[in-house]
């Protein structure tokens, strides 16, 4: 990790360009940083997130790899053994599974296996989530597979500034980090403070209250952060005050701000795109119930993707939590008329 004082500048960047800037900074800061992936070199990635990086840092540091995800991750493990900080790009969420064994049985465990002798500062960048009208396997939200895997850190970014800062933090971390990028928000712009020392930045592991509120706590990550903020705005018009928390870190989860919020609101809604069963919403609801049972005025509510394979894209609007479904969840947690008011489900 670098301790240099970085020059600071502010630019308006898309989320995608912010990641590019973060990768560029990381490559410049530490010559042990290497990028590996399919089509990340000449093409700059199918989303152009690595655009220009091979040109500027060379084909030894920004590697187009053969088309094999286990190969990418397994090679990264060997590079880490040698002292490198590999940053792997998985082209789409649904293509991470061939690398699953290398991630859960190797990357996650090697520091433990070697009693701390070998570090695995590997970052795995994964564009994730739906809403882009894509073909099968291009819209998944596999984050819960990794949050259930001890030894990994998992983060998801929601805005350009976090994207820039957190990708640098992930790369600088001595632990392996699954870095989830909300692909449908790659093009969204925001102000980004570039440069700066990582030690001054909000830690990668902390959640953030993005909109304060008093009636309901709404916990989200990735692309749904914006949807949640929109929902909170809409609810405000009805006189409902929603506190929106962006998880940012999915493992470990920063419970303090959630606990503080729920103690205040007594009501929790968690939304995510992945199927509900076994999703991170289950973990958060269970953990918050453990920690705040007495403060809860209603059972925590989950608003999630359905327990189905990701459907054909013309159906995704019905699968993904949107503003209306989130507000329906808010109505449920507030005991207002809602979709389930008709009586308990079977």
């Amino acid at each position, binding site marked *: 990790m670098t301790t240099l004082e970085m020059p600071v500048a502010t630019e308006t960047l898309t989320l995608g360009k912010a990641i590019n800037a973060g990768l560029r900074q990381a490559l410049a800061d530490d010559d042990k940083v290497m990028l590996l992936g399919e089509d990340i070199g000449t093409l700059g990635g*199918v989303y152009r997130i690595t655009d220009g990086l091979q040109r500027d840092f060379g084909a030894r540091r920004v590697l187009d790899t053969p088309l094999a995800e286990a190969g990418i991750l397994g090679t990264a493990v060997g590079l880490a053994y040698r002292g490198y900080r590999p940053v792997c790009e998985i082209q789409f969420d649904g293509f991470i599974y061939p690398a699953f064994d290398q991630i859960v049985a190797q990357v996650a465990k090697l520091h433990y296996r070697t009693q701390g002798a070998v570090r695995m500062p590997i970052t795995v960048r994964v564009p994730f989530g739906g809403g882009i009208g894509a*073909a099968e396997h291009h819209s998944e939200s596999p984050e819960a597979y990794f949050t259930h895997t001890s030894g990994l850190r998992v983060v998801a970014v929601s805005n350009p500034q976090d994207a820039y800062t957190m990708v640098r933090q992930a790369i600088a971390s001595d632990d392996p980090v699954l870095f989830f990028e909300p692909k449908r928000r790659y093009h969204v712009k925001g102000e980004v403070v570039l440069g700066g020392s990582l030690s001054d930045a909000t830690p990668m592991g902390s959640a953030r209250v993005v909109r304060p509120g008093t009636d309901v706590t709404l916990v989200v990550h990735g692309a749904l952060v914006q949807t949640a903020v929109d929902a909170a705005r809409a609810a405000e018009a009805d006189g409902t005050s929603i506190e929106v928390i962006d998880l940012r870190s999915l493992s470990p989860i920063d419970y303090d701000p959630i606990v503080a919020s729920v103690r205040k609101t007594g009501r929790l809604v968690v939304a995510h795109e992945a199927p509900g069963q076994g999703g991170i919403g289950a973990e958060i609801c269970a953990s918050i119930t453990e920690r705040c049972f007495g403060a809860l005025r209603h059972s925590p509510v989950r608003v999630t993707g359905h*327990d*189905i394979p990701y459907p054909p894209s013309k159906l995704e609007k019905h699968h993904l939590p949107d503003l209306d479904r989130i507000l*329906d969840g808010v109505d449920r947690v507030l005991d207002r008329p809602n*979709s389930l008011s008709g009586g308990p489900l*079977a």
Partner: protein
Amino acid sequence: MTMHDTFLLPLTDAVQLITPEGRRVASPAFDPWVADVTDAELLQMYDDMVIVRRIDAEATALQRQGQLGLWPPLLGQEAAQIASARALATHDFVFTSYREHGVGYVRGVTPAQVTPVWRGVAASGWNPYDVGMAAPQVIIGAQTLHAVGYALGIQNDGADAVAVAYFGDGATSEGDVNEAMVFAASFDAPVVFFCQNNQWAISEPVSLQARRAIAERAPGFGIPSLRVDGNDVLAVTAATRIALDRARSGGGPTFIEAVTYRMGPHTTADDPTRYRLDGELAEWRAKDPIARLETLLTDAGALDDDHRTAVKAKADAAAAELRAACIALRDPEPMSMFDNVYAEPNSMIDREREASRRYLAMFEGVEA
């Protein structure tokens, strides 16, 4: 030194029976396998290729017009697909990736069945058992193992069918494809590995995936391989027939590398100008699979302007059918997303379905 770094047969050029200029050249090994191919059959392949190319162009246009979400064009790979698929029997079974519109066409996939996947209304446009062709596979290489398993089933059934796996040059790097070769060899499975080496895996050249000709990989697994000009319908026919014959006669798997070229983008979302080499496209245009067959047949007096006009009309009709079918596709009913998650009743899905029904009912103003 016992360095096994070279092969018995140096793989220089792929086997070619029709030159890019449209001349028939002799190949003592391959000729017997295509001796019975009539001009009428060649003409049939010509027609198929023209039609498929037209459909492909129409689909690309539909994507540009926002009617399809994505389209992976086969432009340039018509011969590899049409000739190999034409060599198959109806009861053979084919496992492809996403670009095999030509294979599907020959198997009997209708224009109307092609677009649902790419429009996003269904993950598969046809019933695999109706056409002997699996749903398109997006996970690179995964289908090669499926073909091997299907072939094991054929073997157990004592049937004389063959399973065929279509995949790309890039796919050969995936573990699955290599495991498929291990399993196929181990069990002498009646399977044909048909690799369309179209030179690129999105932006990555085949040289990144393989330091040798792709066809050189299989023999080390105990699988004989053939390397043919994939833009030459006759060479592809011969190779596929050889492979099918081996499979049907208990000879086990064969690997075919069809050397071809993707003349379009990887998909409509791709910009190949970012990675293609100068002159590359022009070089391969000169090897166009349709043009050379057209010359051959014209020279043989088997193809005249009347036929050309007729096939063009057919192709336009197929394209029109595709367009009409595509545009007529309605979005699926929201509740259909819960169908077929499981084959048997499932309490989790039932509950989800009921919750969604009530949720949607709110918007319809319908009593839940």
